[in-house]
């Protein structure tokens, strides 16, 4: 049975405390978020949380386990520093969605704004629509999948994250280049697209191009890459 929290009646602090106190397997429904900040932050148990409406800044920040589904839009810093688990919104996200995420998956059904995946460190981000400028800025690890277009300076100063874009790329940032799509990349992409359904319905892995680091900006030479891969 779902536990219901109506944010028109109870405080967000009460909601978040209940989520922190909950046990694996519990389900929550959140009503009337009305753009409130920090909804469903810091979840550490395997919970199923549905938020009916749009949220403000830092929704599902530091997410660790279970799933948060937002039926609406999200403000700045959606799922910032997500560690694992799934955060899925059906609408649009504004700036810095999935910022600094270390693992898990963030799905944006609509468009994401500027700096989506900035400094991502292992999270997989799938965006059903477009992403704004400077997305995957200084991205270190993980995958950013964009089913629409990417605005200017994609992947600026990128490290080892992978970027897949289905539509047009306005421009690539410093040290970001297009790369060959090899079978292992297609395989990764297919599994990400499948995991992000229904935001990716009708989207085929073969429609994407891959982008990543030219590796000229950071200290290692290309000869160091194999040792880095082996260490991962």
């Amino acid at each position, binding site marked *: 049975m779902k536990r219901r929290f109506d944010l028109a009646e109870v405080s967000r602090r009460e909601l978040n405390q209940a989520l922190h106190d909950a046990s694996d397997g519990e389900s929550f429904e959140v009503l009337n978020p009305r753009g409130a900040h920090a909804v469903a932050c810091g979840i550490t148990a395997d919970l199923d949380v549905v938020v009916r409406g749009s949220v403000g800044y830092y929704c599902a920040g530091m997410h660790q386990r279970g799933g948060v589904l937002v039926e609406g839009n999200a403000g700045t810093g959606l799922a910032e520093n997500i560690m694992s688990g799934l955060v899925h919104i059906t609408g649009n996200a504004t700036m810095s969605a999935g910022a600094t995420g270390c693992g898990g998956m963030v799905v944006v059904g609509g468009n994401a704004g500027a700096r989506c995946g900035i400094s991502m460190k292992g999270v997989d981000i799938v965006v059903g629509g477009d992403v*704004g400028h400077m997305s995957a800025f200084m991205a270190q690890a993980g995958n950013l999948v964009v089913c629409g277009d990417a605005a200017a300076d994609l992947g600026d100063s990128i490290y080892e994250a992978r970027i897949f874009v289905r539509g047009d790329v306005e421009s690539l940032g410093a040290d970001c280049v297009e790369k060959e799509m090899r079978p292992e990349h297609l395989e990764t992409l297919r599994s990400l697209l499948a995991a992000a359904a229904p935001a990716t319905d009708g989207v085929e892995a073969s429609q994407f191009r891959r982008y990543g680091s030219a590796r000229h900006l950071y200290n290692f030479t290309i000869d160091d890459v194999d040792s880095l891969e082996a260490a991962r």
Partner: protein
Amino acid sequence: MCGIVGLFCKTETHRHELGRLTAVMLREMRDRGPDSAGFASYDAGLPDRTRITVLAEGIEVDWGPVAAALEGVLGAEVTVRAVHDHVVFSTDGDGRAARQWIIDNVAGATVLSYGSQIELYKAVGDPDLVAERYDLASRTGTHALAHTRMATESAVTTNGSHPFATGADTCLVHNGSLSNHNRLRRFLEGHGESFQTENDSEVAAGYLAWRIRSGDTISQALEGALDDLDGFYTFAIGVADGFAILRDRIACKPAVVAETDDWVAMSSEYRAIARLPGAADAEVWEPEPARIYTWSLAA
């Protein structure tokens, strides 16, 4: 950090409650800027009748003789009414001349706005109390802008509060900071604009006023602003017949826009929009950097 909101009524539906809805939005932005607040609203006004809103904070003035003297200068009837520490002049005469005369002749007064449609109020203090004191909720009209300020680079004063309006019915609220405002202020002063504060945002308002006075449309003026204003900004702008939004090329100052058949609303955060009628079904998006968005009453 500051909070900005703008509401533009495309249809008649919500014009009777423009002020009430703007107050609801302003309240949600209180904690982005608890220092001070202000708002400007646009109504149909009367043809050829200009209103001049003046801040008379901390000064004792007998406004009757001032209005009489202004009548002599303008060669037109002038009426005046007080709203707490603001006064609103109304005249068939030249609004721009009236503004400059008041600046030059009433010591301690600040002309906040002039135009046939705009009135503008601002004060130090809790945004809710500011809205209440000047009765924002009762205002009707087509569009409104409001601002909550968290001062970072200058003192908490009424004159540092937004909105700013230096040209006829042209008004601006700003979240951000400009770095070339001193030089631009000198340039604009050489081209006929006059300023009353050291504030960077007043210069942005003056820049738009100058461009529009020179014959630009609001879109052309904002096109120029992208090249001539250096700094961080999200602007919401009101003009006599329209509403506009502009963000700088980096776009690190937040903005969200929502649109329905009846209204367009913009704010620093969605929660200011969430309580508007029909918000749940509105199209919601983040305005793109360096892209000019305009809505016109004529459209």
